[in-house]
């Protein structure tokens, strides 16, 4: 122990001159793709070239939008029930948990998804793929996680589609996801892929994640247990957001065990 009257002791034991104590979130750069990923052509004029400056986690970073039930309609989680008829394609259930990297569930957080239809076509004016649109499929959904971090969507399996990144380039089937978590630091935009897709090897977006273990974390898992007989196949997909650095207080608690 330091003598009580040293400046060091004050700094080590008093929260702050302002009385403000803030959490800090673990940095996780190694999970993510480099912005300047050469093989993905759209990065060439868009990826920043200067080094990023590390931003400390102050009030604006450790808070974030807590968007509530007023953002989610009754059928928003069911992309097969948003029109008069059912969309064509293979009906699937996509469900899982939103966790932080300490395994703690992230409750009541908004999850937004969007995707191509079963033919690999987005209902978007910029999509030139000559595959049919489906009048019964918009391809967007949202839900809130429950108090244990669980979420669930019903949709159809998206098709693969061609793009012009390189000769004969095709995107593996994927669903886009947007997550807010509970802090600005936790915001995540990602894509969920399907197991065993033969297109993985030639996709520069999937492979922009260099660590094979991290790439695996973008692939959903087929799950027979939650597959509904005679109705829909089920894919499980847990999403892990950044967790908090341990605080001195939490360390003390563990020392007591």
């Amino acid at each position, binding site marked *: 122990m330091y003598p009580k009257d040293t400046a060091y002791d004050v700094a080590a034991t008093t929260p702050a001159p302002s009385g403000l*104590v803030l959490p800090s979130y673990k940095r996780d750069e190694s999970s993510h793709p480099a912005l300047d990923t050469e093989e993905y052509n759209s990065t060439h004029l868009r990826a920043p070239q*200067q080094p990023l400056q590390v931003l400390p986690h102050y009030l604006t970073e450790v808070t974030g939008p807590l968007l509530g039930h007023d953002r989610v309609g009754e059928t928003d989680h069911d992309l097969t029930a948003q029109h008069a008829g059912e969309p064509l394609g293979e009906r699937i259930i996509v469900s899982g948990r939103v966790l932080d990297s300490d395994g703690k569930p992230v409750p009541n957080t908004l999850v937004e998804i969007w995707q191509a239809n079963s033919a690999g076509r987005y209902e978007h004016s910029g999509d030139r793929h000559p595959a049919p649109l489906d009048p019964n499929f918009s391809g967007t959904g949202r839900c809130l996680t429950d108090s244990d971090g669980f979420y669930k969507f019903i949709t159809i399996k998206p098709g693969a589609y061609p793009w012009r990144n390189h000769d004969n380039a095709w995107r593996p089937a994927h669903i886009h996801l947007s997550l807010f978590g509970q802090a600005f630091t936790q915001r995540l*935009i990602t894509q969920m892929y399907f197991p065993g897709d033969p297109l993985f090897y030639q996709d520069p977006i999937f492979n922009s994640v260099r660590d094979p273990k991290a790439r695996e974390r973008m692939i959903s898992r087929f799950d027979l247990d939650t597959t509904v007989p005679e109705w829909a196949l089920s894919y499980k997909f847990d999403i892990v*957001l950044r967790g908090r650095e341990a605080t001195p207080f939490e360390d003390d608690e563990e020392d007591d065990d």
Partner: protein
Amino acid sequence: MAGDTLGTTPSQTVGPFFALSGGILWEDGPEVVGADEPGAIVVHGRVLDGNGDPVPDAVVETWQADSQGRFDHFDDSRGESTSFRGFGRCGTDPEGRYWIRTVKPGTLPTPDGATEAPHIDVTVLARGLLNRVVTRIYFPEEQEANAADPVLSTVDAGRRGTLIAAADSGGYQFDIRLQGDDETLFFAV
């Protein structure tokens, strides 16, 4: 438990096709506050690529304190909650333009006793960005507060200006340059 930590889910690009009906671009996305809110300002600007061309398929998201420097959030331990939404989101148009109607945020304390100048945290998402990029908007009339800001004051002086909006009628202009000689300063958050 400090035991095993889970690897985080990697980021991927938002892609070119997020602007679907019922999707992530909400009708009221840019309206952090209504037009009749006292002190409402519009922050607007363009997102530009390395050729100086507009980025017509970007999403600009903002997060900020209210005019008193408060957040409606459980980790704002100062109490006195507010119902301020704080969050804005706007897709860029064919000229790369975005806008957000909001109020100018207040100053914020830091745990080590410094004071952050009024600022807005910004996330930019786009095709070609494999991870979000993050910057901050500061205000040009806050010279003293900006000089004392614990983040802005550590930014290379030659690039500090890329984080300071320009005042104009009804609000502020803040352009975001993803590349080039005057590339906006981006943060690792």
